[in-house]
């Protein structure tokens, strides 16, 4: 212990002879350098978006293949396919694939959701030819060996058991059903009993029918020459072709406001609030204004929702509001996890803030704060290869490009206070929201019933 330790009171610590000091002004912001971009469609219909960003000698890869399906078994088969796509080809087995990738400092991984099959990876840029070769080999020649499919299927069943005990997964699944009924978009996590029935033949047939270049997009960002890379990709993927296009997910219907459904999770000490309303996509001229309105509501820490239910009331560790994009559609999702005892109170405050956003428009100070945050956080998130690659892949999915991204700060800068107020009033009206509460009905039921607008399980 030092001589000073504990000598000062909290009050003494919190002040100095000089007193409070003024906040420094912001300096001049340097612009981002223009990016060298190639954006083209190959003869097999694959769109390739390649960007030079040579900050480090690596390359990031994102591939998105539209992967919609209406068969009730589709999501189970798709999940097994994603787990086994990189487990063997005619010339490489599972271990050989991992070894080749490791030796170029590389990784490749897969994920699937109702909309798309995603292959993501990275490598030292000197290893790009190998990365593309392994990718092409899997896309054109994955064998789905019986033993690999059987083993991954068993693991998947085990992992699904774990996933379905996660409150976040339970809440997401319930929200999707509340919003979209039995639309294929709701099948984000397949049923274990369906997965258990998937055969290697099913997976091979799905690959044949659905792992297709036309309509898919490949994004490469890194220490590369974009134009040369397009040729490299064309060469590497020349064996990947088909007449048909990859299958988009059927468009989801617009959602309408309604009561929240209480989903029982007995014994839980915390509840999940999930509210959702229809929004507009990135191509709508009102998108930038709604983006700012959403930030002011609950899209960042300094938002009305977080300052109210976390920093003032202490009801939650994290509350947020964000866009959820499905095909060309977009929705808003407001979420918070709160202690059971304060669940109804947190819902009351959330509804209050929804109503208030439209009726008491964001102030000039709120607007300037969210504007700076939207522009600055985009700059930060796209300042790394991985961040830029993910951002471009999401945009490409919506039919947008690097130019849209480069011009978005200007769009945000041009939004007026009236446009934000209009967007807030139209899209954040409490009656437009529907949703779910997941929690212990014995603890949260009475309060929610008193509050109203919540249907008991």
């Amino acid at each position, binding site marked *: *212990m*030092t*001589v000073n*330790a*504990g000598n000062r*009171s*909290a009050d003494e*610590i919190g002040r100095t002879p000089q007193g*409070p*000091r003024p*906040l*420094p002004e*912001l*300096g*001049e912001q*340097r*612009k*981002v350098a223009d990016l060298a971009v190639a954006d083209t469609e190959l003869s097999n219909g694959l769109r390739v978006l390649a960007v030079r960003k040579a900050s480090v*000698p690596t390359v990031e890869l994102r591939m998105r293949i539209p992967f919609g399906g209406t068969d009730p078994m589709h999501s189970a088969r798709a999940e097994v396919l994603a787990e086994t796509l990189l*487990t063997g080809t005619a010339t490489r087995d*599972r*271990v050989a694939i*991992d*070894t080749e*990738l*490791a*030796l170029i*400092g*590389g990784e490749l991984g897969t994920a699937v959701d109702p909309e798309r099959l995603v292959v993501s990876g990275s*490598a*030292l840029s*000197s290893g790009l030819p190998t990365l593309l070769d392994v990718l092409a080999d899997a896309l054109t020649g994955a064998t789905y060996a019986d033993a690999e499919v059987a*083993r991954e299927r068993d*693991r998947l069943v085990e992992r699904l*058991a*774990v996933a379905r*005990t*996660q*409150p976040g997964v339970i809440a997401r699944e319930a929200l999707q059903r509340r919003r979209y009924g039995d639309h294929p978009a709701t099948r984000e996590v397949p049923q274990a009993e369906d997965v258990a029935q998937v055969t290697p033949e099913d997976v091979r047939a799905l690959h044949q029918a659905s792992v297709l270049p036309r309509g898919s997009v490949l994004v490469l960002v890194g220490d590369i020459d974009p134009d040369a890379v397009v040729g490299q990709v064309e060469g590497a993927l020349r064996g990947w072709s088909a007449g048909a296009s990859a299958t988009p997910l059927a468009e989801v219907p617009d959602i309408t406001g309604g009561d929240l459904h209480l989903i029982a999770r007995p014994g839980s000490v*915390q509840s999940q609030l999930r509210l959702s309303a229809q929004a507009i996509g990135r191509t709508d001229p009102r998108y930038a204004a709604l983006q700012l309105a959403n930030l002011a509501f609950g899209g960042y*820490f*300094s938002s009305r929702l977080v300052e109210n239910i*976390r*920093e*003032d009331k*202490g009801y939650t*560790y*994290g509350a947020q509001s964000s866009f959820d994009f499905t095909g060309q559609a977009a929705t808003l999702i407001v979420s918070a*996890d709160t202690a059971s005892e304060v669940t109804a109170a947190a819902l009351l405050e959330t509804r209050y803030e929804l109503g208030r956003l439209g009726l008491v428009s964001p102030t000039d100070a709120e607007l300037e*704060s969210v504007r*700076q*945050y939207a*522009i*600055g*956080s985009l*700059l*930060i998130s796209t*300042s790394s*290869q991985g*961040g830029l690659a993910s951002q471009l892949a999401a945009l490409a999915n919506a039919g947008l490009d690097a130019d849209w991204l480069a011009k978005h700060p200007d769009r945000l800068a041009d939004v007026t206070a009236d446009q934000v107020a209009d967007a807030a009033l139209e899209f954040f009206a409490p009656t437009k929201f529907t949703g779910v509460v997941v929690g212990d009905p014995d603890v949260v039921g009475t309060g929610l019933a008193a509050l109203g607008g919540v249907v008991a399980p």
Partner: protein
Amino acid sequence: MDTVAGMAAPEIHRYVTDNGLRVVLAPDTTSPVVGVSVHYDVGFRSEPEGRTGFAHLFEHLMFQGSESLEKLAHFRHIQGSGGTFNGSTHPDYTDYFEVLPSAALERALFLEADRMRAPKLTEENLANQIDVVKEEIRLNVLNRPYGGFPWILLPPVLYDTFPNAHNGYGDFVDLEQASVEDCAEFFDTYYTPANAVLTVAGDLDIERTTALIDKHFGDVPVRPAPQRRSFAEPLPTEDRHDTHQDPHAPLPALAVGYRMPDPINELDGYLANIVLASVLADGDGSRLQQRLVHADALVSDISAGAGLFGPFEARDPDTFAVTAIHPAEVSEQRVLAALDDELDTLAATPPNDEELAKVTARWTANLHAEHDRLVSRTLGYGSLELLYGQPELLFELPARIASVTADDVSAAAKALREGSRAVLTVEPSAQEGAQ
């Protein structure tokens, strides 16, 4: 020195201010963004008995206002300048950081200096943040399967002393007893400039940044750094075991904890453990993945690592951990026997060159990826300055990893087998798992 192919070691400036603050400046003007972090040399191993979770609770309070900043102002000024922020509490340090468009550099320095000089520690903010922290614990531990596995559950099995064994998130009873007086004493003891590292990385000019640091941090009062405690405790002399009932978990899980060489003073031995972890469990071609996940189908997932929060996060004593989730039909003994067998194999026959080459290449690529994300670059410099006094170690690691020999890895495996270990079993206890 060109330690990594294709990337020259970056420019790093280090100095110490008159009031004892260690400063690391790492300019890189590739993007017009800047990262600022402050690492204080105190983590949850230093919190007093009866005050579990206090270091983390105090981290929350440091965001709640200071002499020039009302509650909420810190967040608003960072985000309203286009920036992002966070803080985190580790066993041996607590970090605070923000990444911003570079026009906001002075503002970030101002904000960090203000709370280092004169934070407002009030009853009201303390009560509010106790509630928030309890929600954080409910979210991350109490209301989910495998909450706190293994970072909260394994240490009390492997360690005997309070600093190493206790729960760093804290018991609700302890959190509720935290007082403003505790906060004042903790701040005065540990949050002195002489006990901190300030790091600025990214789009910055050295001369201007140095002047700004002097302007804002120059009059933070000098207070001596506390004498750093040793948390050393004897190695366990026999194997240990404990069981945790998890009402949310559908499948059993186990964590195996081993003691490791001192990360700071036996760096080469520590690095051999990092390579060992990678040879064991990184990628489909690794030994435990091949054997336990695929060939024998004993576990659904398995991982191995140096440190419960990742490598280069803590001083001695540190933990080597293997964790696995397995079906109920597979006994824990079978999983442990297979693990022991793989360690014995490595102890008897060193890994081949290709296995080591894979580890080096992936470390090199990961280092580049980390360097490319400004937030991790900034925090990497700061924590390595704090723990090692060597921020440049970040760039030497691939070469250091590459120089670990097959015999070193073999010796590390042998040491794990010869030492005593701790096994923590997670047993599904409930109703819910059956759904």
